[in-house]
């Protein structure tokens, strides 16, 4: 078969349905077929992109697994941190960016301070989240929820210059279609006087809006 035919066009194309289908299947608990990983002369630059974003060289990882062993969220992840590092090394960009793991990472940096190779694993995760955001990958399941929350948080921040817990929760519940999510918490906090309904709008709210706009312009320019 000529090289072109087995080109990565499928993998490179983020609109391709196969990775999405896979995650979808996984989410539904279907059996997922795993094609062998093909390593050929087209080198991946995922490791380099991560390095550029985070200043962390994932290629140094020797897979000791200490990050996974110490990660407080590992039990909830679909791929363990060391698997993510391995996939970055091999350039399996779709598997990485569509994983739950990258957005479940709480940036507690336990992995970073214990890594024997001095890799800031948490910063690698951070850069992968950013790369997923740049590529508009919404994520599925838990990862999707984290993404919706982050977006809701930034939206209120953009609106008022400060975040507003009530609005963030409302936006999150609406956008994730769980209207009564965390209602109990809200109620308890309300009872304890820890909720303020009126958002805190700062005077320099336009300065904050400007920050968002300039960054958006920069991104588009790039």
């Amino acid at each position, binding site marked *: 078969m000529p090289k072109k035919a087995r080109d990565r066009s499928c993998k490179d194309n983020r609109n391709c349905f196969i990775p999405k289908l896979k995650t979808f299947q996984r989410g539904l608990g279907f059996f997922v077929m795993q094609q062998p990983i093909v390593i050929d002369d087209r080198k991946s630059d995922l490791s380099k992109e991560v390095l550029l*974003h985070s200043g962390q060289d994932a290629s140094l990882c020797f897979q000791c697994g200490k990050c996974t062993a110490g990660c*407080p*969220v590992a*039990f*909830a992840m679909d791929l363990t941190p060391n698997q993510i590092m391995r996939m970055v090394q091999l350039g399996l960009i779709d598997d990485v960016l569509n994983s739950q793991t990258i*957005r*479940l990472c*709480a*940036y*507690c*940096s*336990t992995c*970073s*301070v214990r890594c024997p190779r001095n890799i*800031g694993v*948490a*910063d690698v995760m*951070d850069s992968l*989240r*950013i790369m997923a*955001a740049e590529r508009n990958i919404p994520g599925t399941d*838990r990862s999707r*929820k*984290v993404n*919706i*929350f*982050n*977006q809701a*948080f*930034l939206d209120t*921040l953009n609106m008022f*210059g*400060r*975040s*507003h*817990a009530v609005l*963030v*929760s409302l936006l*999150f519940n609406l956008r*994730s279609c769980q209207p009564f999510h*965390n209602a109990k*918490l809200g109620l*308890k*906090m309300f009872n*304890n*006087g*820890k*909720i*303020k309904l009126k958002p*805190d709008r*700062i*005077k*320099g709210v336009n*300065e*904050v809006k400007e*920050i*968002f706009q300039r*960054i958006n312009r*920069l*991104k588009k320019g790039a």
Partner: protein
Amino acid sequence: MKVAYYPGCEYETNAKDYEASAKIVCKNIGVDLVEIPDWSCCGSTAAHSTDHLLAVSLAARNLALVEKIGFDTVTASCSACYQRLALAQAELAQDKKLLEQVNEITGYDYKATVKVSSILEIIAGVDEENIKAKVTKSMENFRIAPYYGCLLVRPSKVKIDDPENPTIMDRILQTTGAQVVDWSHKTECCGASLSVSNNDIVTAMVSRIIKAANAADANCIVTACALCHLNLDYYQSFVTQTKGALKETPIFYFTQILGLAMGFSKKEMGVEYNITDTAELVKKVV
């Protein structure tokens, strides 16, 4: 001593008790917290998960405001805010190009001269004798599990103490006569960034921390972070009520403990805002 103060978005809601107690305690030991005028949100996890430049710029606006009012040190009570500000400062101080770019985005002319300190560091910097002199009540009935969480001690660039066994808060708490227990989950993460989006994960993480505090025979957990406080305070109800194996463990801010020891009322310290029952224990302040 005057220090610029960054309250953080939860200062009137979830962290109002932290804010109040921190201000009172600091004033009492001669630290004047001056609120940054018109501060904005640090961006928190949402920003750094979305765009690196956004995260740094949002923090930089506040740092620039600190510089503008002529302060060289800023402190934040919330440790998430502390970490964001400190990380941004570390990067800006190191990378001139980034600083230029960020200044262009924020519209401020920040020179990267501000030192970011957590409120723990500010209070630990006060002479221990001064604090002891203000302590009027004994907290000896408090068996405290000091909980640092992750944001204060990691990553290495901004850590305020040893990431595995920090003692800065232990030392402050010991000045009140409280018993500070040695326990295993001092710096385990509570999962705050997931507390809205994935609360089942957070419940599991919190239950481990409560379990460890129970195992160490602590009768309360003391924290220096608004997010940890909310998480531990609220989510433990799921495990203490359903599983029964875990004891309900009241959560305090370290400033509340200091304030109670200094003789301030429980109302001033805002302990009744807690979801967990603090009344029993607060009665034991003698």
